[in-house]
């Protein structure tokens, strides 16, 4: 099988190393340009099953703000990002929201939870 070189930028940390990945079909033969070994994991993952952390907001009733920020507990498959956003849009929470509350369990059957990023106290409360 022929070898191919793919260019990627590692986004695991702010350094953003430019990676050159040699692949043969689906298999990663070699990764270059990475400054640490997390770059290799990134390259392998990015080519097989690219994933991203998703952060967005969900509506809240009766809170100090009309929205609560939420995040995926771990990165979700890239092609499912917009499906996830659609799911989140369907929801409305009721204040108070607590930091770490599970907003959606096992979203889209990925096994990943969507969690609240912060407290949203109810309008009269303070925190």
């Amino acid at each position: 099988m022929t070898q191919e070189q793919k260019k990627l930028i590692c986004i695991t940390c702010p350094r953003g190393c430019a990676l050159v990945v040699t692949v043969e079909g689906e298999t990663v033969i070699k990764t270059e340009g990475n400054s640490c070994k997390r770059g290799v994991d990134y390259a392998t993952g990015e080519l097989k099953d690219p994933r991203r952390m998703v952060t967005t907001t969900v509506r809240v009733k009766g809170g100090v703000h009309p929205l609560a920020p939420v995040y995926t507990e771990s990165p979700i498959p890239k092609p499912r990002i917009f499906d996830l956003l659609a799911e989140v849009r369907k929801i409305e929470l009721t204040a108070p929201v607590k930091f770490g509350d599970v907003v959606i369990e096992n979203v889209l059957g990925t096994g990943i939870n969507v969690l609240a990023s912060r407290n949203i106290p109810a309008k009269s409360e303070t925190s």
Partner: protein
Amino acid sequence: MLKKKYDVIVIGAGPAGLAAAIEAKKTGAQDVLVIERAQELGGILQQCIHNGFGLQTFKKDLTGPTYAQRFIDELAGLHVDTLLDAMALNVTSERHVYVTSQSSGFVELDTRALVLAMGCRERTRAQIALPGTRPAGVYTAGTAQRFVNIEGFMPGKCFVILGSGDIGMIMARRLTFEGAKVERVLEIMPFLTGLTRNYVQCLLDYDIPLQLHHTVKRIIGNDRVEAIESVQIDEHRQPMPGTEETIPCDTLLLSVGLIPENELSRKAGVALDPVTGGPFVDEEMQTSVPGIFAAGNVVHVYDLVDWVTQAGLLCGRNAAQYAITARKHDGRRVRMKAGENVRYVIPHILDKESLAESAQLLQMRVTLPIEAPVWVEVMNGEERVTRKAELYVRPGEMVNIDLPQSAYDAVQRASELSVRVVRR
């Protein structure tokens, strides 16, 4: 309940201010107060709902609000006072702070040490001189970030973003998530000004085109932005004729840089560095005014919040130490005041314990000449502490008097001494 005087007052409750307050309290400052203009703690982090915060401090990839929440929770356990919805209006070099707030109205507070942690603000259209009409639909990226992430409304449907800084790129993705179209990100420089990872995960991932060496030539539209005209820039930063392109859009976001917020620092007489736009600081984060410290984006613009927290901790520790030392001296110092026919007295302040070592020389000038024998008298209210005879006094000739060691006990009772020159 607010106290009249604090060990440490912190202005601004972003990551810098929160870290400073926490560390000041832990270092042993007794009363610590945080003054924040917004209705909640956390500063700009509350609108930065994306992840990428805290990799160094917590070895975890946190969102902005989560990063802030950790410090807010820690602060809550430490009995630090907070005054929210409160604007610090003015600060003097003597650390007298003027604040107005919803809950307490207008108040004046004193503090032994002050921490400036007001963060930064965004450059606006006025600061980059954008030609064209002045329609609605031009926002700074940070303002739009606040609308979308906290207040819950979209400032437009179809965007052009000027500037490839992190806030601009992060907003490009965010707006895409909320169903808007981001037509273009324009960058006047020949390189990306934000992090490469944000280029990948905010622009490339969603096919948002970035054009380097491009800027906005003019804004088109009367009531509302209808389009912008972009233009390519040559190596000498000059627009290249013939490269103009009209890009239809209803909103233009500006992500063209941050400037430290130093109105208050200026009022306090803190010397500013024209390069950073922030105060000159020493290794303790103390400014040119003794007892006034600064940390975070108010000093220089950081790209990682972890460093902001580090600076806040350092600043808080030193501010607390300064306050603790000042507190020890509080009851030990007497102010020297000019009484009848005296213009001023040097020293202005006297350490009471100095008399245990030796007599102390007081020097002054009189306001009016008296060509007759006089007493130079040091008074604690109505009680005379010491006096000395002179044959005459004249404004042109300095008057000296020794405060003798025998005055030690009398001075201990005083909080203020005055000197007067009266006829014998």
